Structure formats: C-alpha cells, structure tokens
C-alpha cells in the first residue's frame, strides 16, 4: 500500500524556493530516511505534509486520500523541537493530544511506559530535560497507535546515551510494522535505522533508493597475503574484479555486481595464493552521500 505520495510539491518563501517539485512515494512498512544538509528542505517537506505549511504548488496524498485533519489522526509526528504546554504535566499534555486524536485515555500510560516517563508523568513539562522532552514527543506521536510515524531530527541535541535510547526506540517501533519517516542530517543515523532514503539539497531531490541496495552496490573486499607481489599480479588477471587499490598492508577490491566473496577466495586458491586476510566491507552511506552530492 502506498502510504504517502507527493506530486511536484513546491514551497516558495518570497524569493527562496525551499522545496522544488518534490516527487516522493513511500510504501507501507518502510523506514524512510529524508537526508540532507541543514536548510535542504527536510522540515519544510514535513511541515507541508502535516498541514502546518501551505504549499505554493503541487499536492500530496496520505493513504491515497486527499490530506485532511482525519488523515493526520492516523499519523504520529514530531516536528523540530517538542511542543507542549510547559505548565501542564506530561499526563495532562497527552490528555489534550488524546482528545484531539480522539483516542482512549488508557493509551497515555502505555506510551509513557514505552518512552520511560511513567514515574515522571505528574511533573510539569517545563521541568523536563531535553532528552525527556524528546521522549515525551515520541510518546505523544505513538499515542493513537498510528500507522505512520514522522520524526524530524529525533536525536538533535541529545547526549550519546539519549541518542542510543531513541535509536533503539525507533528500531523497536519499526519492528511492529509501522511506516516511519525520519528526517535527519546525520548519515550514520539513517544508515543505522532506515530501509530506504532520499537525499535533498537546496529543496531538490537528488536521489531516492533503498539503503541496503545502495550499500551492497558499493561493498568492497579487503585482502592480503604473505606474498603481496604475487597477489597483485593474480588480482590483475581476475575478470570479477572491476578495480582495486593498493592500501599498503592490503588490497581493496571492488567487484562486479553478483560476485560473492567466496568466489574471489576460490579463484585465488586455484591460482595458488593463500590469503592471510579476507574481509568484506560494506560501503558506508557517508561515501555514497558525498558521491551523490558531488555528482549533481
């Protein structure tokens, strides 16, 4: 099922085009990363999709329907900083959200338990640390057991421990089959939790694809042997290897798509070379990302 589809979505602020003709399609069950440097249009995109910004042109649909307040009730979202009534407790804040989403109040304790704030639920929001505020925001997004979860820079401003907590939480939620849209400028974050991603720069979509596919395309194999001279000469003759570089201690191979590491090993043994190192290295999204940004 298509959860979200945007068609030529555009947002202009006077002279600046914050988002230019974005076409995006997100299927049910994806953990979709919206990646891009600061100011690339990620938050603008989410603001449009959540009805707080007005599109200059183009349109979008949630669940194959025209967007409405009712479709937003099926979405849990946090946008930028957590926004709550500072003088109300966590429980009272969620009570307001519950009435808006028209869900049962028994959900309040359930989500507070998930985000670990149950014992602080009576304290005013303004007494919370940044990490707790962020967790409450995620809790609030989970309140109506939504089909789609939208998270905008969920680990922004958190300490390392908080970042790990939030990531674990996202993975935990993803396992339950929910569709997650995650905006981030942290590549590493998208790589760790997302199945698909798109790259934005200055309001333009540069790339869209699956994280695993993109990474497999770029995986490399490191090899070394006692006789490095012999290894080099054998490697040059293998058809499966598209390119290689000498790293001194070892050789870094890029192989043809479909070639497995054991194929390389077998070929080398047949040629009489015994390896002292054989390691498959998955490509990192970081190098891919920089490549995408540089290519365009």
């Amino acid at each position, binding site marked *: 099922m298509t959860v979200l589809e945007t068609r030529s979505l555009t947002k202009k602020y006077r002279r600046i085009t914050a988002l230019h003709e974005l076409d995006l399609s997100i299927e049910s069950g994806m953990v979709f990363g919206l990646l891009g440097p600061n100011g690339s249009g990620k938050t603008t995109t989410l*603001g449009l999709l*959540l*009805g*707080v*910004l*007005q599109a200059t042109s183009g349109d979008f649909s949630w669940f194959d329907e025209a967007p*409405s*307040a*009712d479709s*937003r*009730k099926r*979405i849990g*979202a946090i*946008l930028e*900083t957590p*926004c*709550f*009534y*500072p*003088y*109300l*407790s966590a429980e*009272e804040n969620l*009570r*307001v*959200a519950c*009435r*808006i*989403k*028209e869900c049962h109040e028994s959900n309040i304790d359930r989500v507070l338990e998930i985000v670990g704030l149950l014992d602080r639920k009576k304290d005013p929001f303004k007494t919370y640390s940044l990490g707790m505020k962020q967790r409450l925001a995620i809790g*609030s997004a989970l309140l109506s057991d939504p089909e789609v979860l939208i998270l905008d820079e969920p680990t922004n401003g958190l300490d390392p421990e908080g970042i790990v907590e939030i990531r674990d939480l996202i993975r935990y939620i993803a396992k339950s089959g929910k569709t997650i849209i995650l905006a981030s400028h942290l590549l590493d974050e998208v790589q760790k939790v997302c199945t698909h991603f798109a790259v934005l720069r200055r309001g333009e979509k540069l790339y869209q694809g699956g994280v695993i596919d993109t990474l497999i395309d770029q995986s490399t194999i490191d090899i070394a042997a006692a006789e490095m001279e012999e290894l080099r000469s054998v490697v040059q003759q293998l058809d499966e290897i598209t390119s290689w570089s000498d790293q001194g201690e070892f050789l870094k191979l890029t192989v043809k798509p479909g070639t497995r590491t054991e194929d390389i090993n077998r070929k080398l043994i047949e040629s009489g070379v015994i390896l002292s190192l054989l390691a498959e290295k998955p490509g990192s999204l970081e190098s891919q990302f920089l490549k995408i940004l540089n290519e365009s």
Partner: protein
Amino acid sequence: MKRLLEIEWLKLRHYRPFWVLTGMYCLCVVLICSSGMLFLRFLKNKGADFDGIDPTIIPIYDYPDIWQNMTWVASIFKVILGFIVVISVANEASYRTLRQNVIDGLSKSEFLKSKLIFITALSVLSTLLLLVIGLIMGSLYSHVQGVEYMFRGTAFLPAYCLGVITYLTFAMLITLLIPRAGVVIVALFMYTVMFEPLLSVFLLHHPDVADWLRSLVPFLPVRSIYDLVPFPFPRYFLMEIQDYISFRQVAIVVGWLIFNIGISSLILQKKDW
C-alpha cells in the same frame, strides 16, 4: 462541540494566569456592581447634594433600570476578559502548540471553533454572573418587587453578552495578527480605554470635523459595542437617555462579529504556523 470545549478546558484548567485574571474579573464585577448603595452613601456623607435630593434614594437598583445600569458598568471590565483571550491565543503561537494541535489532527477551523466556544463560554458565564448579582441587588434594594417586574429590561443581558463576545473576537483577531501577549495586552488596553474614546470624542465634538467622518463614530469597533448598552445614569438628572437597544447598533456589532471571525479564520488558514 463537547470535544472542542473539553480540549480548551484541559489546556486552561491548570493555568494559573487564567484563574488569576478570572478571579480579578469576578472580583471587579461583583464589587463594583454591588457597591452602588455604598457609593451613594459615601456621596451623602461627603455632603453631595442633588438639588436637595438625598443621593441614597436614587433608584439605581430598581427594576427594570437595574439591568441597563449593571450591564453598562460591567461592560467596562470586559477588557480583563480580553486579556484572558489574548493570553490563551498568544500562548498557542509562542509555545507552538497550535502547530502541534494541527499536526495531531485538529483542523484549523476546529481550532478556531474551540477558541470561539471558549469565548462564548466566558461571555455567557459573565452574563450569568450579572443576572445573579442583579437578582440579589434588586431583591435587596428595588422599590418595586415581584416576579412580574424582575425580568423586565433583561434584554440588556443578551445585548451585553453579544457585546462581550464581539469584543473578545476582536481581541482574538488582534492576537492572531500579532501573536505577542505582552504587546497585544498593552495595545488592546490603550486602544479600548484611551485611543478610541479620545478619537470618538474628538470626532464628535471638534468643530472642524466633516459630517461624514463624524457619522462613522458609531461604527468604530469598540464604540459600537459601547453604544449597544447606552449610558444610563443621566436619567437620574432628569435627562433623556436611550433606554432601549437599537436594532441598528445590534446590526453593526453583528457585522463586526462576522468580520472578526472571518478575518481570524483567513489568517489561521493562510499563515504558516
């Protein structure tokens, strides 16, 4: 409707400034509306003399005049209710909870409705407060008693209520234009008690003002509400006053009410929050 009222109630019930202002408002209205007799006694003790008449026999609490007298006096304090509305709307912008409400699944028209329900509730409660004070003071001091007299002239109560609702939508509109509580509270207060009254006095009494400009005075946003319940007290000095609600004035106020809500709705829809 019930849901929207509940949402407003949940937002405000633990908000101290809301209760402080509400308390202040009730205190002002109760004290001023019920101390008319004390005031007249005070005048008497000071030796005030109205052509040989004892001030304490001036029948300010007599049915049916009591309703016009009280709604006129209470109308002065609607500016405090205005502050409550300003804070309630400005907070939604500054805490960015309006944005969060929309994200959570409240449409902007529902948001507007929830604020309008809140405004109406405040106005109706304020009117009920006046009804209660009126019945108590009337039963204590009115020279005419009896159910058949008590409710005569109570048409001023719904008129007063309409005036307060319209004034509060005006406060909401200004806050949506400039979502800064402090700035709007000062501006609203200055405009209501100084700027517009001075302007209308100037327009009405300065000899060089053109007639067409003068004729605009009853259409000013605060003045039109002020004229809904005409100033009653000159009647005790044997001057003629308007002791009824004019249809024309109601029409002007309803016009403002529609304008305030319409423009508020437009701002909510068009602005990026």
